[in-house]
């Protein structure tokens, strides 16, 4: 089921683990309508496995975002190789002439 289409569930109906998984991103983005959000939240109260899956998912996003961040002070300033600077400037001069 598409990740951003609100589940077509009546508010009094419960959600399966499969539906829960499909709607995780919409829930994290705050895009679930209130009635569906309530059903999603209710599923979390009864399903430890889905709670663990959701936590893994959140951690995955956070790890992805941190995966390319500089760890040390030294790496904070991204350096551009001098040869690349000169190559770009030379190509510009060439293009103008």
């Amino acid at each position: 089921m598409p990740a951003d289409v609100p589940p077509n569930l009546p508010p009094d109906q419960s959600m399966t683990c499969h539906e829960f998984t499909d709607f995780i991103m919409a829930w994290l983005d705050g895009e679930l309508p209130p009635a569906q959000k309530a059903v999603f939240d209710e599923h979390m109260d009864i399903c430890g496995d889905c709670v663990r899956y959701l936590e893994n998912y959140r951690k995955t996003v956070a790890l992805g975002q941190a995966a390319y961040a500089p760890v040390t002070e030294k790496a904070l300033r991204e350096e551009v190789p001098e040869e690349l600077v000169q190559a770009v400037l030379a190509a510009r001069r060439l293009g103008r002439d």
Partner: protein
Amino acid sequence: MPDTDHPADGLSEAALLEGLVQGDGAAYEQLVRQQGGRMLAVARRFLRRDDLAEDAVQEAFLQAFKNIARFEGGSKLSTWLHRIVVNACLMRLRKASRSRETSIEDLLPRYGADSHRLEPAGEWVETGEAAAELREQQELVRASIDKLPESYRNVLLLRDIEQLNTAETAKLMDLSINATKIRLHRARQALRQILDPHLRADAR
């Protein structure tokens, strides 16, 4: 990263732009020195090879120079250049992708007839904060992202790493908004699956 600036060396952004439009060589050099490193980091993430990344950055700069008069100042120069280099990388990847993409299905959760996931989720360990440990974890995550089928990897990079919004990502990937959201959700699920054996507390 897109919207952060190093402290400006030399000219202010307005004066820099003016210099660029006037064809001032010093302004061009300042732009390349200020923005080149960040653009190179972006290109390395997408292309994974230094030589290809440097080519893409050079191409992006030349394209930017050609269109500098059309830069309207609605965004920062750094944001504008970020979009140009991302686009240059995606064009290169598109040209280079010769075979059909591998399927993502094997990396998505499987469900039983009762709609429960067949493989129960486990708790993940917390990582320590020592630099060596963080670096090791970053390497694991980057290698895992590299295992995603390319179009999923690209959507994940654009949304979660380059911080583009869904509409911008959809446009660059030539996908609908809905398809972009589905692809990001699947890419994250697949990445979770790849990381799982390495991070499960009960597997250590």
